[in-house]
């Protein structure tokens, strides 16, 4: 009977899930600076309808990156082409774009599809037009073919976007990544939901639902586990959960605060905040042995540690100077250095993957926004212009920050590029969405 009820709940959850993305992106700023690119709808060489449009996903990825703006497919001079040999340079002479993407999908056995795509250098093609015949292969920036199953269409589309993005920018694409976040649906018996989805909001999955708050999800470096804080036992405790096996381990349950977990770059330790000895202090916990080591020692609040990419130091928030500011602590010597001086408050910091800058929450004139500081020059730039911004999380390629903010009285997620030019909002249907965490490369 109990099992039946469980199944019913599960089935009704699945049935009521909207087919569209749970998180629809609204680009609010930065389209005008994006570079034009042409994505020709991939040619379907099978019967009936194509399982899912790969080129639509690629176009959506490229526009979400803030770097590219795909041209309207109806304006493209050639439609039904799938490789460079069908590409007629003369037809494309007036098209302004960085590159042209073409491709095809055809059935390849039971539940198997052969996907091809080519990235064509249209600028080179236009320059050489009229200078005699051109070997088509010289115009190819990239050409690949792969066999996938029907369930891999979105995943492989993200892979194509990664290849295109890296080829054209020199930066690894972060389209094959996930985000974790907390959704609060007030009024429900268990209002607190820990969710993960693809980076674009598709394939949303619930990892945990609780009657008490869930906080601070953070990814292990292998993208397989999440650490988070749960109040399910009427106190803050830190858990690590395997997202595939669902196995949960309680890692920290001392008196007082057990909060703000952050995986070390080798995935073996967590930096955490514990107040078991009085004030909130930073500790490291060895996940396997549960051995703890105290890092900071100050009567003021020390919290929300994050690791430098080399794993030798932590960035953390402390109000030892009177108000919350960012500090660095060396894990060998415990020597503390203050990092921020500008603005009223600076907190919730993390180091970008290249180790060159840090992203954090800045309070200036009472406004809380996401900011970036160059570690070498100490130049600080406020990136976001939304309200009550918090919980910034940097994409693994360092180009984008996802964060929690408030829009029309609701907590929503938003994204801003680390140069501040591209801004987007990810609204949701139900509940308040917060505490986003961007996964590593998958």
């Amino acid at each position, binding site marked *: 009977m109990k099992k039946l009820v469980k199944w019913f709940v599960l089935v009704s959850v699945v049935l009521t899930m909207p087919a569209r993305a749970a998180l629809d992106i609204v680009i609010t700023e930065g389209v005008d600076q994006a570079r034009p690119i042409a994505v020709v709808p991939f040619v379907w060489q099978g019967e009936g309808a194509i399982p899912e449009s790969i080129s639509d996903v690629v176009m959506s990825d490229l526009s979400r990156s803030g770097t590219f703006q795909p041209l309207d497919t109806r304006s493209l001079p050639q439609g039904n082409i799938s490789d460079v040999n069908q590409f007629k340079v003369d037809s494309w002479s007036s098209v302004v774009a960085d590159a042209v993407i073409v491709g095809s999908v055809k059935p390849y056995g039971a539940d198997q599809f052969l996907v091809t795509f080519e990235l064509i250098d249209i600028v080179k093609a236009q320059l050489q037009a009229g200078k005699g015949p051109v070997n088509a292969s010289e115009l190819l920036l990239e050409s690949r073919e792969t066999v996938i199953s029907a369930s891999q269409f979105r995943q492989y589309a993200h892979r194509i976007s990664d290849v295109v993005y890296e080829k054209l920018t020199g930066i690894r694409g972060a389209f094959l990544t996930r985000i974790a976040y907390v959704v609060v649906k*007030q009024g429900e018996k268990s209002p607190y939901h820990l969710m993960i989805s693809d980076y674009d909001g598709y394939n949303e999955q619930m990892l945990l639902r609780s009657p008490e*708050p869930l*906080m*601070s999800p953070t990814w292990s470096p292998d993208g397989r586990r999440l650490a988070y804080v749960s*109040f399910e036992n*009427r*106190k*803050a405790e830190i858990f690590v959960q395997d997202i595939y096996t669902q196995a949960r381990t309680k890692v920290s349950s001392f008196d*007082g*605060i057990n*909060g*703000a977990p952050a995986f070390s770059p080798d995935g073996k330790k967590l930096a955490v*905040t514990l*107040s078991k000895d009085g004030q*909130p202090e930073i500790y490291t916990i060895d996940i396997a042995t549960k051995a703890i080591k105290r890092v900071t020692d100050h009567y003021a*609040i020390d*919290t*929300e540690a994050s690791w430098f990419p080399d794993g030798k130091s932590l960035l953390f*928030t402390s109000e030892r100077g009177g*108000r*919350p500011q960012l500090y660095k602590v060396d894990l060998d010597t415990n020597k503390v250095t203050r990092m921020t001086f500008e603005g009223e*408050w600076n*907190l*919730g910091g993390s180091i970008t993957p290249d180790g060159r800058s840090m992203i954090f*929450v800045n*309070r200036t004139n009472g406004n*809380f926004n996401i900011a970036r500081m160059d570690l070498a020059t100490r130049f600080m730039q406020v990136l976001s212009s939304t*309200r*009550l911004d*918090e*919980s910034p999380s940097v994409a693994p390629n360092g180009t984008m920050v996802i964060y929690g903010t*408030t829009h029309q*009285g609701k907590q929503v997620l938003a994204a801003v590029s680390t140069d501040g030019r591209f801004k987007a909002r990810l609204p949701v249907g139900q509940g308040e969405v*917060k*505490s986003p965490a961007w996964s590593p490369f998958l």
Partner: protein
Amino acid sequence: MNLNKLFKAMVVAVPLLALGACSSTSDSETDASGSSTNGSTTSGQYENGGVVTGGAAEVLSPAEQKRLKEQELRRQNIIYFDFDRSELQSENAEILMAHGNYLVEHPNVRVLIEGHADERGTPEYNIALGERRAKAIAKYLQGMGVQPSQMSIVSYGEEKPLDFSRTDEGFAKNRRGVLVY
């Protein structure tokens, strides 16, 4: 499975027991204060030979008056704080003293002190701030003689706001300590 059931039964039973304990004490207190009204309500019954009795309000001793006032004050279980501060405000002293005296007189009663913050700043910093607020209340009560074993503390930071308006008034309502018996 059986253990699970037992646990579920306990989850229901324990709060009920606690409730029972609470209500019995408050009943006896209201009886003491409400005796005058009880006296005047026996009316128009012929078995009494048609007589109707009257009564006067009880004269309360200063100690009883104080106790009644504190009972009234204890209904207020929320203590508010200034932005990014955890110092207690003087206007909350009466409320806290009422709770403190009650806890000192009833050493078996336990209280959970919740600390909360408004939605400004990061969730992690606000957890620390909420704990500091809860601790400020606990320290005050301990100063009045409440045993540390009677008090436990939990900080919810900005995770359980009372007011979702995200206005200055809403923020003020959310910056609070709550005494839960």
